[in-house]
């Protein structure tokens, strides 16, 4: 166990972004095809290690919950709890007896089932057969559903004891209003109580279909083997139809401040607005600009002003989370309750100055060097590449996305960033959430 100097949160954000780039580096060679029933497959051959990663993603995240917050997550959580003739114990036994790792999950846009396994015959056959069953014939037994419901309810309650989670939920509710991105993917106490098995089965039948899915494969397979693998895993899914387009996110009309009392020694601060979407024309200007403002790891304007110059927070950051529709632009920090106002002011001032003046040439050069020079790090493992493939496939980004990225970064100018921030970021209409300052604080 160890402590790191800087919150790992930032690394997580980089992964959310999934942005590669570099001068002379090309991305891995991506092969692409469509299964007979209509699932798109992206594949990168990686013969270096006797293993494979396969990740199947569906447009089946909580944005598709409708009036039943938590439905997507509950459905996803049940997939590996019963499938074909096997119960949860048997599914786990089958996978773990050959050292395979299966993961299911969902966020706002995406739901996924992923598998990592050795490629020796026994491990491969056993784990792929199991993954196929989990995707194609989950049973959604009532007992399992009730247990998962209780687990999710407890998770909601545990979230209530975490000031960061309380802040994040309030922030999303306020920024996204009546858009599906507003509701927590884990559901609410009320919504979880009311979800029925029929709803889960209907959700699965509608969303876990070939046309609504993308398969990403990286591993020690050739093209033919990868085609067989994709066919085996998703070939028996019904063709189905692609999920209908999500409604666009509305811009905020006025500033709003939410102050929630919480018995913590720190106040958790989140401020922001709807940001950008995948394929957004301002994507690269805003990405590089944010890198300078608050996204560049240990080096950023916010880190400089809030942490290095004033010692106000351990973790201070900003990020755009690009989604199918406009995901959030967030600036965040945590500081002792007595310093919350000062931290808010410094964060706001830093942003205002950045919007008004734009970056300097030097700042832009440093950011470009960091992003492009770090390109090989971004695609240095099978697990990173399989994430990119599923992201490229899911958001229908061009296949040369990785190859072209460096050029796009290099084309960003000071003027372009300045202009994009002026047009797109509106602090006068921000949602600002502060959670803390309640009774019985630890100090």
């Amino acid at each position, binding site marked *: 166990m160890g402590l790191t100097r800087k919150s790992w949160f930032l690394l997580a954000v980089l992964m959310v972004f999934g942005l590669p780039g570099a001068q002379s580096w090309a991305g891995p060679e991506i092969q692409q095809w469509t299964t007979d029933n209509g699932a798109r497959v992206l594949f990168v051959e990686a013969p270096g290690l006797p293993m494979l990663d396969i990740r199947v993603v569906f447009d089946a995240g909580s944005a598709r919950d409708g009036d039943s917050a938590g439905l997507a997550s509950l459905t996803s959580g049940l997939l590996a709890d019963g499938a074909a003739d096997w119960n949860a114990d048997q599914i786990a036994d089958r996978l773990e007896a050959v050292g395979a790792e299966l993961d299911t999950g969902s966020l706002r846009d995406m739901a996924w089932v992923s598998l990592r396994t050795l490629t020796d015959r026994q491990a491969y056959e056993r784990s792929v057969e199991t993954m196929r069953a989990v995707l194609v014939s989950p049973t959604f037994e009532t007992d399992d559903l009730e247990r998962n419901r209780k687990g999710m309810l407890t998770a909601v309650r545990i979230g209530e004891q975490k000031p960061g989670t309380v802040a994040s939920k309030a922030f999303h509710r306020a920024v996204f209003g009546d858009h599906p991105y507003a509701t927590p993917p884990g559901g609410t106490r009320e919504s979880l109580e009311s979800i029925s098995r029929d709803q889960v089965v209907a959700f699965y039948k509608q969303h876990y279909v070939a046309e609504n899915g993308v398969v990403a494969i990286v591993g020690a397979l050739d093209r033919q083997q990868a085609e067989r693998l994709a066919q085996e895993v998703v070939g028996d899914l019904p063709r189905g139809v692609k999920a209908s387009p999500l409604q666009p996110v509305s811009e905020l009309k006025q500033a709003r401040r939410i102050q929630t009392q*919480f018995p913590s*020694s720190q106040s958790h601060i989140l401020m922001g607005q709807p940001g950008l979407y995948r394929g957004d024309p301002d994507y690269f200007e805003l990405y590089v600009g944010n890198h300078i403002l608050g996204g560049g790891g240990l080096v950023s304007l916010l880190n400089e002003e809030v942490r290095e110059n004033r010692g106000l927070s351990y973790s201070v950051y900003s990020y755009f989370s690009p989604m199918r529709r406009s995901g959030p632009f967030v600036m965040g920090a945590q500081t002792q309750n007595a310093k919350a106002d000062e931290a808010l002011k410094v964060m706001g001032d830093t942003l205002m100055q950045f919007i008004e003046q734009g970056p300097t040439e030097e700042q832009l050069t440093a950011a470009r060097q960091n992003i492009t020079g770090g390109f090989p790090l971004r695609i240095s493992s099978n697990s990173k590449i399989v994430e990119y493939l599923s992201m490229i496939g899911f958001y229908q980004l061009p296949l040369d996305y990785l190859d072209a990225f460096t050029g796009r970064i290099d084309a960003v100018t000071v003027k372009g960033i300045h202009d994009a921030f002026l047009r797109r970021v509106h602090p006068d209409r921000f949602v600002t959430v502060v959670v803390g300052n309640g009774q019985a604080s630890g100090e």
Partner: protein
Amino acid sequence: MIRSILMVVLPAVVFSAWAEGPVHEFALDNRLKVIVKEDHRAPIVVTQVWYKVGSSYEPAGTTGVSHVLEHMMFKGTPNHPPGQFSRIIAANGGRENAFTGRDYTAYFQTLSRDRLEIAFELEADRMRHLTLPEEEFRKEIEVVKEERRMRTEDKPTSLTYEQLLAVAYRNLPYSHPIIGWMSDLENMSVDDLRRWYQLWYAPNNATLVVVGDVDPAAVLKLAEKYFGPLKPENIPAQKPRIEPPQRGETRVSVRAPAREPYLIMGYKTPVVGHADQEWEPYALDILTSILDGGSSARLTRRLVRGEEIAVSAGASYSAFARLPGMLLMDGAPAPGHDIEEVERALREEADRLKKEPVSAEELSRVRAQVVAGKVYELDSVFYQAMQIGTLETIGLDWRLIDEYAERIKKVTPQQISQVAQKYLTEDNLTVAVLDPLPLDGKKPLASRGGHDGTH
């Protein structure tokens, strides 16, 4: 869905073995150890500098000083003013950070392979020439206090774990938190850091680990160029710290604002290098995987799915540490069940390991996971470097990484029962229970310590 909190609080380093890229070991004249592992899958290189110092070296009154010093290592030398280190790494497309543990403090950079020299130049410079300016310290100590508030003060499960350690160890220096007690942070001075830096930051107390797409001879040459001129230091010998026999169960309750109760329990256990029998830590390692080596293992299977007593349950143990530690088990009750039921079930699982030999299937599953894990970990150069650095820094040999799978294979069901009988005993046990206080300062809980299952 809800992961055992142990997974978060205690990411135990798991060791395993499979065919690997070649490893080369060198020592410079100033006794800096250099270990290079080739991995040519991607054109990148990770550099890690490991110092043999961490929170378990700290005397009472200055707990947390290793970690604060780690923060201050980014605050400049005569050649590089505060913050420049990070800016240079960033401008070269690198990722960097540092971490402090009980037994080590380590610094790392990941770069494309042609930039290795930049990392060496900067790391060598701050190994002996840190400035430690007073005004930078005044700001950074505030950052560390914020870090403590975020990680511990406002996290009821972290508070519970911290209290468990504090009451479990009578003499072992694992009793205080890595980040330090808040009062020690408040009383820390830049002079404390100067003394700490002087004592421990020297080439003969460090290991340089490089993993990636590199030529070992070229790495050695660069290491000699940058680290070679650094002067060694007289490193103080550590007195042995031996934990006296516990002689009875220890319990502590932690009352903090929270919604959900939580339990963590620890049995004192040996580690590699400190065991009566060489095989014991490996038997304990398998025992832990029998309990919590995935979704098919006993705790999730029985407590979460079978009897539905818990929403999460876990176990963790590290066979590799400088000093003996604990095998930990934790859990949180499911709605309609209380923390006592979770504790009873965890104790029953410990007892069952003493009475019944583990099945062939379970053993075979653990071995398969070890073999597979050894391949999977080669997907990360960072993790490979972590393994080498950890073992070297706690006084073991990195070659243990390769022996691990063989040693695991040799463990018998009888040996697993034996370590259970010997170490998972009541006299050897410490239990910490989180007892939730209302979050809003007024709403009383239905039954304190129990589970409020109503809404």
